[in-house]
């Protein structure tokens, strides 16, 4: 991007100084295991919500999906609604309080440990840790590549050097300071992202003739949709694709289900529920979380779609044509040509923040999964000599190295699919047993083990051998069976999440009913309330309002 590099470098240095100051503040309070792994369990609700949101929204969600919206239109706003409703409201109000209480009752400090202790199974903890440790680096690798490419183009630094610098900066505060440092830094980054996106939205609407004026112009541009897109169902940027068309199916199945609901079972997000001191903090966090997601994803999609109006006015072409068919280039192109230079620089910091906060959360989640869950609890059966913090630090270092190596050796076609692959895998593997752990007392250890294994391998099988988007670039099916995918027809279009997740739910249900329930006493311990929880519940009942469906 064409901005004054020396001014930008000064801005970045000031930004980094602020980050290290906050990281240091977090580190000084993180000497205990709970502090390092769970930020001390008394994080402010606003910090928790910003950290959750900033970890959730990466640069690719802004640049990548913004570009997709420029191509496909505002139908993507359904995804924003799903993200706010499921990803924030349901997650914070229904899943959050139960996760927090149960995590505290069982003394769990990570998401795999939460599952392992809830089902009294080291296998579940070790296997979940391994699953996260092996597959999250793929997702982390894709975020690293995106960030390094971004730094390369904005600061003019060599790509390999950019990757190295970016990784070292994040690794230093994640390894040293633990989750509290990560969350403090996230809060700053989330704030910068919020301001950047708010300005982008206001500027775009003012520039293009107000909310209704801008939308109306975009609606009137429907006849300009390229023939190739119109043939698969595109009916304009302010209209849904025609019902049942290939484009409609892609939008509905992959985007809405995969990314919208998938967020509920993300280990790096779920662990944040255990960082606050009470249920009310989670409910308060909704105040910040909802608007945050609206301002990130919502603004990216609206501005992405509206960039067509801007480009048509200034160049006579639609956004996709201006970017030469590459949707990833649409948002940077729009920012550069439409926004004032000072804003472009500030917005770059926002994007850098989006990448750093997602990477930081991933590094911490991978490290704790490998160091604590897989190695200390799974392999050493809890008899390891080192402390949890040491094992985790080692785990973080190993998994960062693994991510960087993956980022270098894997073909770009796989990396591009990594986020969807990981989210799909998490949903199939973890969502059924996570929901069972929270809401169904009858689920048994055997049911959970069977569901975890079936969900994980079912998802992996489907994406390796059937789902075209992964099976074709992976090439494993081609090498073994001599054809690109095992099934043909519409099957290769069906997302693994739609196959493996229902299967895992079914297995959990059937196997649990066929096996002996978990001991009543243990369940009482899992679901027990502490004095302050009881106070909260009593207060709510007496108020006769805001009935909380999550309270035990």
């Amino acid at each position, binding site marked *: 991007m064409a901005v004054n590099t020396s001014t930008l470098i000064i801005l970045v240095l000031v930004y980094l100084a602020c980050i290290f100051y906050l990281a240091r503040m977090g580190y000084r309070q993180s000497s205990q295991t709970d502090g390092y792994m769970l930020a001390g369990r008394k994080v402010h*609700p606003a910090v928790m919500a910003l950290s959750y949101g900033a970890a959730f929204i990466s640069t690719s969600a802004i640049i990548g999906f913004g570009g997709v919206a420029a191509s496909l*239109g*505002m*139908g993507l*706003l*359904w995804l*924003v*609604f799903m993200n*706010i*409703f499921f990803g*924030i*409201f349901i997650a914070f*109000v229904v899943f959050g309080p139960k996760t927090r209480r149960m995590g505290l009752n069982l003394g769990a400090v990570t998401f795999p440990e939460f599952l392992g202790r809830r089902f009294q199974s080291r296998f579940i903890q070790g296997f979940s840790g391994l699953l996260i440790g092996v597959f999250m680096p793929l997702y982390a690798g894709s975020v690293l590549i995106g960030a390094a490419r971004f730094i390369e183009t904005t600061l003019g630094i060599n790509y390999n050097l950019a990757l190295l610098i970016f990784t070292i900066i994040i690794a230093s505060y994640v390894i040293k300071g633990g989750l509290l440092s990560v969350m403090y830094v996230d809060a700053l980054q989330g704030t910068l992202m919020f301001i950047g996106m708010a300005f982008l939205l206001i500027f775009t609407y003012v520039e293009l003739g107000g*909310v*209704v*004026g*801008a*939308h*109306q*112009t*975009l*609606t009137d541009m429907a006849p300009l949709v390229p023939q190739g897109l119109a043939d698969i169902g595109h*009916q*304009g940027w*302010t*209209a*849904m694709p025609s019902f049942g068309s290939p484009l409609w199916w892609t939008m509905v199945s992959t985007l809405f289900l995969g990314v919208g609901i998938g967020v509920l079972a993300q280990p790096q997000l779920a662990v944040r529920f255990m960082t606050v001191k009470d249920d*009310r903090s989670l*409910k*308060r*966090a*909704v*105040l*910040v*979380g*909802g*608007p945050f*997601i*609206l301002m990130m994803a*919502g603004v990216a999609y*609206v501005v992405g779609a509206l960039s067509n109006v801007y480009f048509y006015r200034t160049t006579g072409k639609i956004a996709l044509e201006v970017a030469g068919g590459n949707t990833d280039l649409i948002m940077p192109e729009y920012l550069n040509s439409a926004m004032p230079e000072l804003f472009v620089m500030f917005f770059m910091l926002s994007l850098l923040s989006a990448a750093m906060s997602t990477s930081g959360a991933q590094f911490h989640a991978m490290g704790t999964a490998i160091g604590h869950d897989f190695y200390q609890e799974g392999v050493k059966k809890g008899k390891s000599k080192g402390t949890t913090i040491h094992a985790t630090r080692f785990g973080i270092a190993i998994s960062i190295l693994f991510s960087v190596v993956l980022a270098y050796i894997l073909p770009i076609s796989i990396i591009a699919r990594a986020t969807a692959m990981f989210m799909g895998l998490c949903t199939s593997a973890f969502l059924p047993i996570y929901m069972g752990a929270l809401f169904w007392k009858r689920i048994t250890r055997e049911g959970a083990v069977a569901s975890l294994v079936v969900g994980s391998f079912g998802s992996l099988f489907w994406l390796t051998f059937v789902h075209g988007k992964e099976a074709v670039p992976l090439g494993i099916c081609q090498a073994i069976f001599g054809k690109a995918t095992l099934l043909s027809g519409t099957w290769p279009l069906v997302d693994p999440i739609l196959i493996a997740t229902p299967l895992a739910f079914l297995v959990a249900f059937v196997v649990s009913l066929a096996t002996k329930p978990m001991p009543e006493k243990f369940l*009482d*311990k899992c*679901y*027990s*309330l*502490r*004095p*302050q929880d*009881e*106070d*909260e519940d009593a*207060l709510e009942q007496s*108020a006769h309002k*805001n009935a909380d469906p999550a309270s*035990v």
Partner: protein
Amino acid sequence: MLGIDDPQIWLAYVLCVLSALGCVVYGALNWKEGEEEEEEQVVKSNTSRPAVQE
């Protein structure tokens, strides 16, 4: 509505804004309600109580 003809799109647009506003209202109500209780807890914290099980 809002310059968008397709109800499926303007509905999504409106729902996004309303759900975010709903989050603000929900959070604010809990924020206010909690303040009174926190004051009570300061008093309670002087008297230790054993963990109560359901």
